[in-house]
C-alpha cells in the first residue's frame, strides 16, 4: 500500500512537472506568472507612447548608407566617447550572450563571429571573449561579473536574457568604467554607452496585422499563433496586433501558444479548420509557419492570407504556393552592429545613445530578390541576416 501511495504521489508530481514544464524555458518566468486574466494582457503589455513612437519610426528615413543597414540609425542622438579612446588595436572585447537557443539567435551569432574575424584581421580588435548563459538569468549575471572582475575587457557587449533581472549586472559593468553595449532586448538603465535594437515589437506586430486587415474582407476570421507568454518583445507584437485588429472588422478566432513547435502548430490549426474557416494567420514569430500552411493543404482548404517572418522555410513556401503573405522582419543584421560599435567607441568615435536600426518587412515585391540572395542557405535561416559581404559567406552560414 505504501509503495502505491508513493508511486501515485510521484505521478502527481509528474503531472505538475508537465503542467509547469512548458514554462521553464521561458526567459521571463517572472513576467509570465501573473497572466491569469487574458483580457487584461493587452493593457499589461501595451504602452501607448512606445506604440506610437515605433509606428512612426517605420516611416522615418534612417541616417546612413542603405547598403549597410546595420550601420544605419533612426533619429540618432550622438554621444561623445572620447573618454573610452584607446591606442593600439589589440583591445579585448567581451560578449555576454543570453543564449543561442533558437535559429534566429544562431543565425545572428554566426554573423557576429564572422564580423569579428574581419575586425581582428584588420587589427581593430584583439581578443574576442564570449560566454553563453543558456537563457539563465543567474548564469548571465555571473558571466558579466566574471568579465568585470577579470579587468581584461576593454569593452563589454551584453545581449540580456531578461530586462529587469539583468539591470543591476549591467549597472555594475558600467560602474567599472568600461564602455558597455547592450543589444536586442533592453535593460532598465541608460548607463550603457549605446543600446542597439531594431524598431521593435510593436512595429513588427503592426506590420503583420495591418497587412491582414488590408488584404482580407471585413468580417474575415484570423487565428493568432504565438510562441510563449511573458517575453516583452513577443508581447509587444501581440499588443500592437490587438490594437489594429480591434479597430478593424476582422474577427480574431483565438490566440494560441505553440512553443514554436511545428507539430503543435499543425494540430492547433487543423483543429480550428475542423470547426470552421480561417481566412488569415497572424504569427508573432515565423517558427513553424510552414506547418500552419500545411494544415490548410491537408484539410483541403484554400490558403490563408498570412503573416510569417523572414525565415527562409516560410519564404520558400510562400513563393512555391503563390499565397498572399508578408514576412515581417526583426532585423537579424543587428548582430553585426555591437562589435562595430565597440570598435567605434574604442576609437573615440561618436555613436548613437539609442541606436535604432531599420526594420522593414519583406513583401511580395522584394521577396524573390531575398530568396535569390539566400539561395544556398538552410531552411531555418533569416533572409535579412545582412552578412552577404563578409568573407565567410556563404559557407559559415550554410555549414552551421
Amino acid at each position, binding site marked *: 500500500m505504501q509503495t502505491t*501511495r508513493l508511486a501515485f504521489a510521484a505521478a502527481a508530481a*509528474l503531472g505538475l512537472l*508537465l503542467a509547469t514544464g512548458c514554462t521553464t524555458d521561458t526567459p521571463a518566468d517572472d513576467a509570465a506568472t501573473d497572466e491569469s486574466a487574458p483580457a487584461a494582457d493587452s493593457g499589461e503589455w501595451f504602452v501607448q507612447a512606445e506604440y506610437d513612437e515605433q509606428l512612426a519610426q517605420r516611416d522615418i528615413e534612417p541616417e546612413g548608407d542603405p547598403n549597410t543597414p546595420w550601420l544605419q540609425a533612426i533619429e540618432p542622438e550622438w554621444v561623445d566617447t572620447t573618454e573610452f579612446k584607446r591606442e593600439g588595436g589589440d583591445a579585448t572585447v567581451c560578449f555576454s550572450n543570453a543564449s543561442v537557443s533558437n535559429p534566429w539567435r544562431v543565425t545572428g551569432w554566426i554573423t557576429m563571429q564572422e564580423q569579428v574575424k574581419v575586425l581582428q584581421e584588420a587589427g581593430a580588435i584583439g581578443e574576442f571573449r564570449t560566454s553563453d548563459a543558456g537563457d539563465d538569468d543567474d548564469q548571465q549575471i555571473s558571466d558579466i561579473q566574471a568579465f568585470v572582475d577579470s579587468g581584461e575587457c576593454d569593452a563589454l557587449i551584453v545581449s540580456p536574457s531578461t530586462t529587469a533581472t539583468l539591470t543591476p549586472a549591467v549597472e555594475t559593468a558600467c560602474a567599472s568604467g568600461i564602455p558597455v553595449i547592450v543589444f536586442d532586448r533592453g535593460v532598465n538603465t541608460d548607463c550603457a554607452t549605446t543600446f542597439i535594437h531594431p524598431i521593435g515589437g510593436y512595429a513588427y506586430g503592426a506590420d503583420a496585422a495591418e497587412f491582414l486587415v488590408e488584404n482580407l474582407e471585413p468580417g474575415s476570421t484570423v487565428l493568432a499563433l504565438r510562441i510563449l507568454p511573458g517575453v516583452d518583445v513577443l508581447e509587444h507584437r501581440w499588443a500592437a496586433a490587438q490594437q489594429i485588429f480591434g479597430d478593424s472588422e476582422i474577427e480574431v478566432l483565438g490566440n494560441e501558444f505553440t512553443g514554436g513547435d511545428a507539430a503543435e502548430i499543425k494540430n492547433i490549426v*487543423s483543429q480550428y479548420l475542423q470547426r470552421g474557416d480561417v481566412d488569415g494567420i497572424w504569427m508573432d514569430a515565423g517558427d513553424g509557419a510552414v*506547418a500552419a500552411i*500545411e494544415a490548410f493543404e*491537408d484539410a483541403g482548404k484554400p490558403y490563408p492570407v498570412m503573416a510569417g517572418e523572414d525565415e527562409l522555410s516560410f519564404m520558400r513556401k510562400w513563393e512555391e504556393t503563390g499565397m498572399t503573405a508578408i514576412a515581417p522582419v526583426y532585423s537579424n543584421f543587428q548582430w553585426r552592429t555591437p562589435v562595430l560599435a565597440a570598435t567605434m567607441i574604442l576609437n573615440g568615435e561618436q555613436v548613437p545613445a539609442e541606436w535604432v536600426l531599420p526594420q522593414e518587412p519583406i513583401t511580395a515585391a522584394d521577396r524573390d530578390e531575398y530568396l535569390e540572395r539566400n539561395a544556398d542557405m538552410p531552411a531555418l535561416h533569416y533572409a535579412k541576416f545582412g552578412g552577404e559581404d563578409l568573407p565567410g559567406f556563404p559557407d559559415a552560414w550554410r555549414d552551421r
Partner: protein
Amino acid sequence: MTRARRLGTALLGGGTGTVFLLLVLIFAGILAMNPGFFEGPSLMAFLKQAAPLVILAAGQYFVIVSGNFDLSVGALVGAQVVIAARLIDGEESRTVPVMLVMLAFGIGVGLVNGLITTVLKVQSFITTLGMLLVLYGAIRLWTGGAPTGSLSEAFRTPGRLGITGVPVVGQIPWALLIMLALGAGAILLMRTRFGRILMASGDNELAAKLSGARVDAARTAAFVLSGISATVAGILIGGFAGVSAQVGEGLEFTVITAVVLGGVALGGGRGTALAAMAGALAIEALFTLFNQMALPATLRPAVQGVIIIAAVAYAARRRTRPALQSTASPS
C-alpha cells in the same frame, strides 16, 4: 449482479479502468462542444495527430512496468527528426536507408540506456536524464543550434498522408494503421513469457530473479523497445509537421503522464499496455477539448495538471478499497 458489479469495479475502480471512463467523459465534453468532431474526417485527423504519442506510450509502458523510467524519449524523437533532415537533405532515394540508420540509432540509444541501468546499476531516472542531456547537447553541437537539411516527400508520407477516397471517413491515415499494428504488437508481447518476466521484474525483482527469470535482459529489452517506439514516433512527427528546432521538447513528461493516467503504477508491476495507450489518447483528447472550449492558453497547463492529479488520485482511492473490504467482510 456480480457481473454488473465487476464491470463497475473495472470501470470506476481499479487503476486501469479509470482511464476509459476519463476518455468517455472527455469525448462527451467534445461532443457537447462540437458534434462535428465525430464525423469521419476530423476523427481521422485527431487519430493521425495522436498516433505518435500512443506509440511512445506503448514503448514507455514496457520500461515503466519493469520498474524503470525512460526520460530520454523526447530528446530522442527530436534527435531522430534532426538526423533525418540532415542525412536525407531532400533526396528521395535516401529515405529508406536513413530510416534504417534511425532505427539502428534508436536501438543503440535504448541498448545503452538498458545496459547502464542493469549492468552498471545506475538508477534509470539518472541514466535516461543523462541520455536526455547528451542527446540534446550533441544535437545542438552537431547542428549549431538550428536543424539543417530537409525531409523527402517519401519520408513525410507515413506521418502526413493515408489511404484516400475511403467512404465516410475520407482518408485512413498511415499513422493510424501503424499505431494499430504496433499497439496490437505491444498487447500481444505482454502475453508472452517475455511480458510476464517484465511484469514480474517490476512487481518483485528478487522473487523474479529467484524464480530464474533473466530480469536484466528483459529490462534492457524494454529500453530497446522504448528506443524503437521513439524512432517510429520521430518518423511520424517529422512526417506530420516537418523539421523544427523544438520538435520532441517536453514529450517525455507528456508520455509518462499518459502512461500513469492509464493506471500503470510508477515503480512497475501493474497496469496494461492497452490502458497506457488509452492514457495517451486521453491526453490528446484533453488538448482537443481545451481547444474546443477556447480555454485561455495560459490557463490550460493548470487545468491539465488538476485533471491528471484528480484522475490518478481517484484511481488510487478505488484501488485501495477492495483490499480493505476483503479483510473486513470476506463475503
